[in-house]
């Protein structure tokens, strides 16, 4: 049976600010600039927006954005938990909202000065309050495990042990991302590729992660406009259908520290997303031509290739060694340069790249694109999308 949400909504506009290390303006201004650009791209007016969706750790309230847009009637607003794992979920929310008739035009956004105003990768020390959310940090905080890099490193070490991957394999992911970024004029690391030797020479952050395994901290914003597929056909751009969208959390899930499940590098929640996406789209891995795989840290790109069945469990290292994630390979990955190369806009810049691949406008365009897979944060409750030509 066809899934009731399949192909019912479309992405009709994308917009972004420049990506930098110091935007020189407020996060709220970045947000409204990107949203206006996305609406212009769609050929829609700010007055037509009646839904907004984002995910946590964005500091811009929906209603402040709506005031600045001069919006008239905001009928749908939602905010998904768990940071980067929520990256694709607002598009999922938007699709459900427009398909159900709750809203007509929903804008998904992310806007952050997470390099110039604060340091996103810094240690997090929660206040000592007795809440269940904060108490989850108590099991790692006193031992000095306080950064996203340190939480991912724990799973990466075990993955190397279980499957014989090495830090060179993590490096290959970074080198591939930077090669893509080098050819993307919007990328922070435009024309700045790295070699595997550069990766190996970069300093340790948290062993087994080196500096060049870690994504950037960036200033910038991205916005995505979603409306019904039937309406999309009458708008300015070639519609990009939301063929499938899903969220997932399972297997003794914790936020970045799911250390108490049997297999700590298996990305069980992403496997749950994969299962739903393939079922909803009615396709399998062979139908995907290119993918945007969340790369806050390079090691977790490898098990993502495995949970989406591009290769078997433990064989992603071979897939990467064979150059299959490069342009011309079986599955070019992160053609915008990823968050290692383009910018870290918490995954939303990856959705924009997925849209460009379907439209045929990427600076690293893959030929014959029918389906693009986009994933959200790894190691956290997460989400994903399959985008397709209308």
């Amino acid at each position, binding site marked *: 049976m066809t899934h009731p949400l399949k192909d019912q909504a479309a992405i009709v506009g994308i917009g972004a600010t420049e990506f930098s290390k110091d935007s020189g303006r407020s996060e709220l201004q970045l947000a409204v600039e990107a949203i206006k650009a996305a609406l212009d791209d769609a050929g829609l007016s700010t007055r037509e927006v009646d839904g907004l969706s984002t995910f946590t750790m964005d500091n811009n309230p929906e209603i402040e954005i709506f005031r600045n847009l001069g919006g008239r009637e905001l009928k749908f607003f939602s905010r998904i938990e768990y940071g980067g794992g929520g990256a694709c979920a607002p598009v999922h929310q938007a699709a459900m909202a427009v398909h159900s008739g709750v809203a007509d035009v929903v804008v998904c956004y992310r806007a952050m000065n997470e390099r110039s105003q604060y340091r996103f990768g810094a240690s997090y020390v929660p206040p000592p309050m007795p809440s269940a959310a904060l108490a989850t*940090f108590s099991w*790692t905080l*006193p031992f000095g495990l306080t950064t996203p890099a340190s939480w991912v490193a724990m799973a990466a070490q075990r993955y190397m042990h279980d499957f014989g991957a090495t830090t060179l394999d993590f490096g290959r992911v970074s080198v591939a991302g930077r090669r893509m970024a080098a050819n993307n004029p919007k990328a922070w690391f435009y024309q700045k590729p790295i070699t595997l030797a550069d990766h190996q020479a970069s300093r340790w952050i*948290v062993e087994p992660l080196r500096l060049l395994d870690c994504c950037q901290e960036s200033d910038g914003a991205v916005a995505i406009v979603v409306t019904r597929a039937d309406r999309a056909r009458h708008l300015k751009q070639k519609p990009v259908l939301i063929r499938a969208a899903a969220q997932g959390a399972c297997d003794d899930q914790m936020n970045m520290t799911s250390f108490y499940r049997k297999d700590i590098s298996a990305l069980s929640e992403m496997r749950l997303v994969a299962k739903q996406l393939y079922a909803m789209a009615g396709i399998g891995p062979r139908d995907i031509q290119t993918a945007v795989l969340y790369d806050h840290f390079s090691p977790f790109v490898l098990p993502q290739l495995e949970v989406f069945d591009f290769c078997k469990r433990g064989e992603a290292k071979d897939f990467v060694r064979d150059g299959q994630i490069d342009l011309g390979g079986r599955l070019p990955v992160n053609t915008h340069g990823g968050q290692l190369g383009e910018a870290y806009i918490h995954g939303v810049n990856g959705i924009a790249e997925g849209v460009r691949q379907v439209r045929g406008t990427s600076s690293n365009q893959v030929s014959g694109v029918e389906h693009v897979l986009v994933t959200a944060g790894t190691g956290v409750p997460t989400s994903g999308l399959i985008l397709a030509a209308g």
Partner: protein
Amino acid sequence: MSNAATNDWLTAVKAQIGREALPPQTAVDPVNLPMIRRWCEAMGDRNPLYAEGKLAPPATLFMWTMSHFRPDLSREGGSLLGLDLVDAAGFTSVVATNVEEEYCRDLRCGDVITQRVTLDGISEEKKTGLGVGHFVTFRYEFTDQKGEVIGRTLFRVLKFRPPAKTAAAKKSPVPRPPVTRDSAFFWEGLNQRKLLVRQCGNCGRLHHPPGPMCPECNSLEWRALECSGRGTIHSFVIVHQPQMPGLNYPLPVALIDLEEGARMVANLGEIAPGKVRIGMPVDVDFVEIEKDFVLPVFRERRAG
């Protein structure tokens, strides 16, 4: 707010009101065009009268006799009258709060400025946003080479007591964990040098990190199982960056499989970071970070 000691120093300062606060100071250089141009450039002032040297900007009045930005031992004067007493009373921080200027005639190139300054007043103790302090006012008079008055300035500063170091500065170097009713037993157990894991009172399943309901049978009944502290390393990291105060880097942190079946994060003691291996057998020990704050630390098991 008044006690004998306060009154003593304040009375002493008040007794000096109206007196010369510094010896008269005559400018080293006459008012001159290069300095005027430099000032206009810094301030963004494009008035052609200044650039052509016809007049000097009135606001430079204060500038010609200013003390050097490097301490100049050859110059007499020292600090303004009264401020030494205010400092000694503990009001050691300073912020300028008011400047009022009066210009009597145009300032021109060639004028040689002499400055005289008097102590004009000191306020009673005030509570301000910066802290408790006193406002101290000085009056400056600027004369030219003929002794004619060119202008006057009122200059007021707030001298305040720097805020005491907050309690935060004395906090434990290792951050304290947020503790809930569901997890308090674990931390209290550590204080008694016990490694406790929540065990379902119905089906016996271990549940760590603990929660109020057994994920297996949904029972709310539970007991604390005291673990042997024997385990093996399931995974580990070596933290290099960023570094937190109170911890030693490179810092090994391990995920330990306890022999009872639970898994937990802890630091490793007495081992070189390069020697840590997955599968390594370890035993628990306890370290007191401060009173009522004990953490588990695992050490490599000795042979036999």
